[in-house]
Structure formats: C-alpha cells, structure tokens
C-alpha cells in the first residue's frame, strides 16, 4: 500500500499555507466527525487520517521532515515547477505570472536500453530537390539504416505529385538491396505533401506499438498547394495514435507555418536548414533525440482555473517550439533520457477577490507514455496555483525564467512582425524589426541583427520580407533559446 499523502488527504497543494491547512482540516473534520456519521466505518477511518495529516502538517518542523520524504508528484519522473513570483499581490487589476515546468528522467533511466523506434522518412522528390539535396538525403538515409537497432523499424516514402513506398518497416540487416533501392530515387514532379504524409502515416501505423517511439520525419523544400487542411487533419489522426510528425525544411521556399502546425499538432519539431550540407547533421540529431526519449507524448490536460487564463506555452528543452493549445490539452513533447523537458507558461491572472487566499492557474492531469514500463501510460494530477497575500522582501525573479523570457520575447516580436505584415501594417512591422535588431545587438547576435535590419529595409521598399530573411529571423530567434546553439544563422 502506498503511504498516506497528507496533502491529498486534505485536498491541498504541497505549498499550502498554514491558514489553508487549518481551514481544510476544520472543513474535513466537521464533515467526517463521528457524531455526525454514527456507525459509518469509512467516515471514522477518514476522520483518523485527517487528524493524522493535520497533526503533521500543522507542525512546521514535522511538516518539513515529512516534505523531505515525499516522492515526486509524477510517478517515475522528477518533476519541478518554478514560478516567477513566490506570492501574488492582492490587486484589483490583471497580472501576469509565469510557471516553468521541468520534467526529468530518473537517473536510473540512463542505464536502460533505448526504446525501439518506428520511423518513416517522408522525402520530397519534386524537381527542386534534384542534385545535391537529393544526394545528401540518400547518403544520410543509408547511413541511418546502418544505425538501426534490432527492434527498430524504418520506412521510407518518397513523394512528388504521388507517393511511393520505397521501404516498409525494414529492420536491421538486408542493407544491400535497400541501399540500391534508395539510390534509385529520382527527383521529378511537383510537391503534394498530403500524399507523402498519408503514405508515411499508414506505414508508421502498421508497425506502431506502445513499446515503440512512432514518428514521421517529413523532408521537403517546397510548398504544397490546396492540401494543407487535409494534411493537418491527418496530423490530428496521427496524434490520436501517439505518432509524432517532425519537419525538416530545406532552403527558402517551404511553408514554415504549415510545417510548424504539423509539428505542434503532434508534439514534433520543425528544423530549418539552408544548405544541403547540414541535412545530415540535422537528421542525425533528430534520430538520436528520438532514440533517447525516456517518455513521449507528454500531455497536460487541464481545465483553466477560473482565476487565470493561459496566454501561451513554450517548450525550451529538449528543443525549442511554441506549444499550441488544442482545446484543453497541451502536447508538451518528450522527456529525454539524459536531459529535461522544460516548458514555460504565461498566465494572465484576473483581479483577485477580497479575502482570496490562492489562485488556481490550471488544474488537470499530466499523462505520458514511458515505453520501457510494463504499462507504458503514466497519469498524475497536476495543479498549478499560487498563494495570494503580502509579499515578503523583494527578491530577484528566478534567473532561468528571466533568461528564457528575454528570448521568447524576441521570438514573439518576430511573430508580431508577421502579423503586422499580414494585416498590412508595414509601419509597425518596420518599427518592431528595428526594435528586434536593437535587442539582438544587445545580446551579441550581430549577424542576426544585421539580417533583421536588412529585412526592415526590404520591407519598406517591397512591403514584404524576403522568404529567406523571414525564415532566418524566425528560426534564428527560436534557436537563441537552445542551450548550445547548433543553428548557424548566417545569411
């Protein structure tokens, strides 16, 4: 039997105040008192548990000692939340509060074998992919084949205006035949991403098991026309089956908004490479990131606390992506074996009511798949809340939150530039780009700053950004958030 969790007994968060503990205890004790429930054995037992919980939690020393023995709130995962403020002031206007969620695999996970992969590469073989791009994709694919572990499965689909399955659920071995099939791939035709995605999805679905990391990697350099909506619907279907989609965009012409949407819908990521030389390092990275997943499909299903509203969520580790809100579910991503999944959330807290002691930002449950567990699914309740009251001495906000926000702010500025341009507001967009350049310079990002200034100029003359500059700015500001910068943002 699991030991009694005193906080759960009283229905309290772990950082409950002494007042909250007292109130919760009195309420429970009144409800469960033997005088009111004669002969009710269950109530009597509950009453004793509540007594015991209050005994410990109302005594500061005993509570501290007890807190130290508490396991993580989520089974099999080290979990931590840091807020931008320890206590929220009671004020009659709206205020912002930030929560930084960090999920880390337990140290023992490093010694476990990596989970098997079930991947499909969906490769654009339209005319523009011809030459160097196709050559690099081919040689990289063959190399990835050699890295397969015995339980891995790899499928390859190529597409132009139709899709072809080159490889279906191949396992390690049989390289010769496969390699020659891959070499046969020829560029030619248009770009119809839906056809490729659909074939890739079917392949991954065919071999999908709860034990596998199921993922589609879409490699493209072009725009698809008219089938975006169908593709997004397919991504939703993939999400239902715990299949992630990641996009690798090559050059300037691909549709970043579309690829981002596919990725955020399924918990995948988008990458941008300008030169074909970098395709290999990006695919390698994606491959090893996937095979180092400890848990995947980490989701937070929440009902907004009535006291606050989630403004946005942003993944900072292991890769950097904005997280989309789909109904009341946030698909957070995966927890790597030797690192963390980190997500920053911004909440707008409504004006507090008189006498209010605590504001609930979001409450719900976290779920995830840990393939190495006998029962892969782990579910745990998660409630984000803050106390309201007198703040103590002014302390610095947590450095990591400030640091992350300074860069998310730049990414969001860039996003607003796009919105300004879309609504024809060139003047605001130009001013914002100039601001962005100033901040980039201040952060030592002089190359990216120059690109931004150049685009500001271009914007005034042509009322639009160049496709290349726009992607550099978007993925450049995004990659500022990476711990070790891997993306080269040189134009």
């Amino acid at each position, binding site marked *: 039997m699991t030991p009694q969790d005193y906080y759960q007994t009283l229905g309290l968060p772990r950082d409950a105040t002494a007042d909250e503990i007292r109130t919760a205890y009195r309420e429970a004790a009144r409800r469960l008192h033997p005088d009111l429930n004669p002969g009710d054995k269950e109530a009597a037992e509950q009453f004793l548990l509540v007594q015991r919980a209050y005994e410990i939690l109302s005594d500061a020393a005993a509570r501290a000692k007890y807190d130290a023995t508490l396991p993580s709130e989520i089974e099999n995962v080290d979990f931590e939340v840091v807020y931008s403020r320890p206590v929220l002031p009671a004020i009659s*206007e709206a*205020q912002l*509060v930030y929560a930084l969620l960090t999920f880390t695999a337990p140290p023992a996970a490093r010694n476990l074998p990596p989970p098997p992969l079930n991947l499909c590469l969906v490769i654009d073989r339209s005319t523009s992919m011809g030459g160097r791009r196709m050559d690099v994709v081919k040689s990289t694919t063959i190399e990835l084949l050699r890295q397969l572990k015995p339980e891995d499965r790899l499928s390859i689909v190529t597409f132009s205006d139709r899709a072809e399955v080159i490889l279906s659920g191949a396992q390690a071995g049989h390289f010769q035949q496969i390699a020659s099939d891959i070499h046969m791939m020829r560029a030619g035709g248009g770009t119809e991403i839906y056809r490729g995605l659909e074939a890739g999805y079917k392949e991954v679905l065919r071999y999908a098991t709860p034990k596998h990391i199921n993922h589609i990697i879409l490699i493209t350099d072009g725009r698809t026309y008219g089938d975006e909506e169908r593709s997004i619907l397919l991504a939703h279907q993939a999400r239902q089956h715990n299949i992630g989609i990641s996009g690798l965009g090559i050059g300037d012409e691909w549709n970043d908004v579309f690829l981002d949407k596919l990725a955020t819908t399924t918990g995948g990521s988008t990458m941008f490479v300008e030169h074909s030389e970098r395709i290999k390092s990006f695919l390698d990275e994606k491959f090893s990131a996937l095979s180092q997943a400890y848990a995947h499909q980490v989701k937070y299903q929440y009902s907004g606390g009535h006291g606050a509203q989630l403004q946005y969520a942003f993944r900072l580790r292991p890769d950097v992506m904005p997280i989309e809100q789909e109904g009341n579910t946030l698909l957070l991503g995966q927890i790597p074996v030797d690192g963390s999944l980190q997500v920053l959330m911004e909440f*707008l807290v409504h004006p507090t009511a008189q006498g209010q002691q605590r504001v609930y930002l979001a409450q719900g449950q976290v779920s995830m798949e840990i393939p190495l567990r006998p029962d892969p699914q782990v579910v745990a309740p998660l409630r984000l809340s803050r106390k309201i009251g007198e*703040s103590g001495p*002014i302390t610095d906000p947590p450095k990591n939150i400030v640091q992350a*926000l300074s860069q998310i*702010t730049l990414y969001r500025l860039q996003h607003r530039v796009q919105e300004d341009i879309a609504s024809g507001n060139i003047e605001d967009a130009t001013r914002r780009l100039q601001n962005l*350049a100033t901040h980039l310079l201040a952060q030592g990002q002089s190359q990216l700053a120059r690109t931004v200034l150049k685009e500001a100029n271009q914007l005034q003359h042509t009322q639009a950004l160049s496709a290349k500059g726009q992607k550099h700015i978007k993925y450049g500001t995004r990659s500022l958030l990476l711990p070790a910068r891997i993306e080269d943002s040189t134009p």
Partner: protein
Amino acid sequence: MITCPQCKHQEPEGAFFCSECGARLIRLNGLQTHSIQHPEKPQTAEWEVERRPATGTDPLKAASVVPEKIPEDATIYLRVLPSGEFIPLQGQTEFTIGRTSKGQSILPDVDLSPFDAYAKGVSRLHAALRLENGELSLMDLGSVNGTYINKTKIPPNMYRRVQPGDIISLGKLSIQITLE
C-alpha cells in the same frame, strides 16, 4: 499596470518584458527598474508590488526628487531613435553634441550627421552633456531649434539634470540616454 519606459506600452503587473518593443521592464539584483518620469502620468515600473508615490508633474523636479547616482564603471550610451543605434560616450566627462558640415572649425564630440541631423534641425553645436559626481546634466548651447527633455523644452545655457532612460530631443531628433 507597468508602462514600458521605451514605447509607453502598458503591460500587466508581473510582466518582465514589454510585449510591444521587447524592452526589459525589471532589473536584476533586487534593484528597481529605471523609472522614467513622465510629464502627464508618473508611472512606476518596479517588478514587485511596492509602489513609488507619484512625484509631481514637472519632469525636471521629479528627477531631482529621485536622485540616482551613476556608478563610476558604467558606460553611458546615447541611443538614437528610431534606428536604435547606440553611441558610447567614453574617455571624457563632458561631451558636446551636434553635427558637422564643411569648413566647421569646432567639431562636436558626438556627431549626429549620419542620423539625418541636418534635416531634423540639429545645430552644429547643439547641446552639451556633462557627468559630474555621478550625476548627468544637459545644457542647450543656444541652438536654433531648441533642446527638450522628455518633451519639455529647456532654457539655453543652463545645465539641467537628466537620468538614464530620459529622452532628449535636439530639434526633431530624439535620443535616449542609456546605461550599460
């Protein structure tokens, strides 16, 4: 509400950065942010709940109510608006600001010619900025189009106290004083 010192956009309490222009609204090490005294509405921009009382409506008086020493090792920058380019001020305690033209015998320490100074009505020797005992002050050198601190015109040939964050205008060219 917090008012962004740079673009005057209003952000909710608890914000760390301005969502409009990206400026940081808090200062680390437990220090307060620079509060720009605004003629119409004195505003606070502390990151914690403590509120500073309103300090009147005259920006110059307000500035003297809240003296803020400039650390000796700090570098002062002039941030030329709207391009946002920074000009560092180093090696001296007094700087003349103006523009250059052909045949000019006395050159200003800070030459604003690259920023369209002529078209914006900057005089050749327009103003002087002085750093003394950790205090910054600005004097208009009898310019044609005048010098303004936070949109308030100052009389010529008299030093007026300025603070990091203040926006000074030489004619129509605006510059913000910043610290690094």
